[in-house]
């Protein structure tokens, strides 16, 4: 277990965390500001990935594909918001869970209808298709792009939230939605904006993920679960919580998967370690989340409510 190995694994964790951050940031805003459980967020990620693949096939340009994917997904998000989601803001969480679950089913079948059941794929942009040598180990250069994009988005969101007027509105609405509405803010417009922003971030995540993993119907659900874990651990409504929560979840999950089995093999009998190792590594992030929630139910970096 060399130091360089550990460092590269850490990097892997950070990269995974960045992908999670892109998804969590959007969802935590929606949840925090509008108190709206949008389970459909995973479907927007899926739509973004499919749109990216389709656009890349036509344009062969990663940047163009990204622009098209983000715009298309934002459009889809706004349309769905107008038709379905808007009617659910006043309803209780359960109704929101149900309706968005129904939307997940519809979207899963829709992409299967349009693109078929086979997985779609997209190549890594040519500039980043070669691995680079990092401390003696080959590392896919594309993953640095993911880290880079994640960091840029993080900085961008920070500037948006802390240095712009929209950011002030978002922070106010996250702290106290009712008061914000009372102060004359056009809440409807704000809601649509937040949903649109969330959709854009989800699409970006889909774009980043498309070259790495297969794009197929139902790809949103596994990552949605992890996103919810990140948000709840980090603190609902807090972008900072999403950022650090995502990094924590990403790093713990990655390091857990690699270090835990080895650790168990040192301590326990080999066959037992092999039996329980993978089970525990899968459970690790849930254990961490459960621990955080019991000790600090509002999350690690909660929004301070006025």
């Amino acid at each position, binding site marked *: 277990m060399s130091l360089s190995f550990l460092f590269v694994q850490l990097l892997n964790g950070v990269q995974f965390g960045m992908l999670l951050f892109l998804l969590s940031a959007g969802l935590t805003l929606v949840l925090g500001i509008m108190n709206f459980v949008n389970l459909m967020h995973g479907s927007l990620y899926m739509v973004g990935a499919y749109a990216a693949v389709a656009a890349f096939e036509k344009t062969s340009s990663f940047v163009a594909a990204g622009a098209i994917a983000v715009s298309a997904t934002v459009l889809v998000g706004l349309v769905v918001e107008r038709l379905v989601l808007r*009617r*659910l803001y006043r309803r209780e969480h359960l109704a929101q869970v149900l309706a968005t*679950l*129904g939307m997940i089913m519809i979207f899963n*079948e829709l992409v299967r209808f349009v693109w078929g059941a086979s997985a779609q794929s997209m190549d890594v942009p040519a500039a980043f298709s070669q691995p680079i040598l990092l401390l003696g180990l080959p590392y896919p250069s594309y993953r640095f792009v993911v880290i880079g994009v994640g960091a840029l988005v993080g900085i961008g969101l920070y500037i948006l939230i802390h240095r712009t007027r929209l950011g002030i509105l978002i922070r106010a609405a996250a702290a106290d939605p009712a008061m914000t509405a009372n102060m004359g803010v056009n809440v409807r417009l704000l809601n649509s904006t937040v949903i649109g922003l969330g959709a854009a971030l989800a699409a970006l995540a889909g774009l980043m993920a498309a070259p790495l993993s297969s794009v197929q119907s139902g790809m949103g659900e596994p990552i949605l679960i992890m996103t919810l874990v990140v948000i709840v651990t980090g603190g*609902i409504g807090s972008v900072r919580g999403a950022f650090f929560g995502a990094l924590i979840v990403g790093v713990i999950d990655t390091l857990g998967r690699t270090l835990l089995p080895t650790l168990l093999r040192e301590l326990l009998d080999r066959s037992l370690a092999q*039996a329980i190792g993978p*089970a525990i590594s899968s459970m690790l992030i849930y254990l961490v989340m459960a621990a955080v929630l019991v000790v600090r139910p509002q999350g690690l970096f909660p929004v301070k409510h006025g």
Partner: protein
Amino acid sequence: MRRTIASFGPREWCACALLSALALVPVWAQAIGEPYYLSLVTRIMVLALAAVGLNLVLGYGGMVSLGHALYLGVGAYAVGILSSHGISSGWVHLAAALVVGSAVAAAVGAVILRTSGMAFIMITLAFAQMAYFVVVGLKAYGGEDGLQIDSRSDFGVLQLSSAPVFYYVVLCCLLAVLWGLSRLVHSRFGMVLQGARINERRMAAMGVPCFRYRLVAYVLSAQIAVLSGVLMANLTKFASPSYMQWTLSGELIVMVVLGGMGTLAGPVVGAAVLLVLEEILSSVKLPLPGGLDTVINNHWLAVIGAFIVVVTLTMERGLFGSLRSGRRSA
């Protein structure tokens, strides 16, 4: 205030009709020579039972548990594991399942009931996922492939291997649980539970230990789900980790809310409508224009999704809950 037939409203009539229909299904299936419908409705009732149990914490208690499938799994695997070791007595299966289920529920509940809202939802999910991973890792008991059960639980005089007998056993369980719950929610316990859902601070201010009541409700609800799991394992003669997936918990929530959360029979209606709709949509063979029936056959999940969205948007109290009740006061 005694309820008389005269005071029955559409809701009560619907419930009566539904329960009568359920009682007559084996007779009807025999008459038309289609034993398949017997197993279909048995499956509906088993899931309805789990949904009814979930309703206790979800509808009356206001706690959104996304992890109830965990207890279904406990029930199913109790039967599976004991059977694989040669123990086929139904009473042992049931007792073991309930004991383990109650212990797990008490332990889990003690931890999760300290949280609420979104945190509660996520933490129930976490526990269910953890249990799922543990079971998948159990190679000795089939792991991901699941565990076959050679024969149904032996309850002595009750021959569960006979389909109509099994059907009526399930129906009786469902009716017994419904009756028990109706007594419970109208009792002091039920009042406290609903009061805690509506305004916990007020209840606490009155000196009511809400946590204790919630924990009891959670354990009871888990026990009902465990019973459902035992029956499910008997129905399919199979125990599988897929019984514990969060998607099944989600389906149960859909059944409860679709049917009507604050009502007793709502989950039964929700389960029946959802599963019958699934059955019809996936095998509809009417000659519709443009090959639409093949599209529906292949993508019936989308139709169900749309159905759920529409019902959620238009009927705030669910299908059954939207029916007018004949009772003059709550």
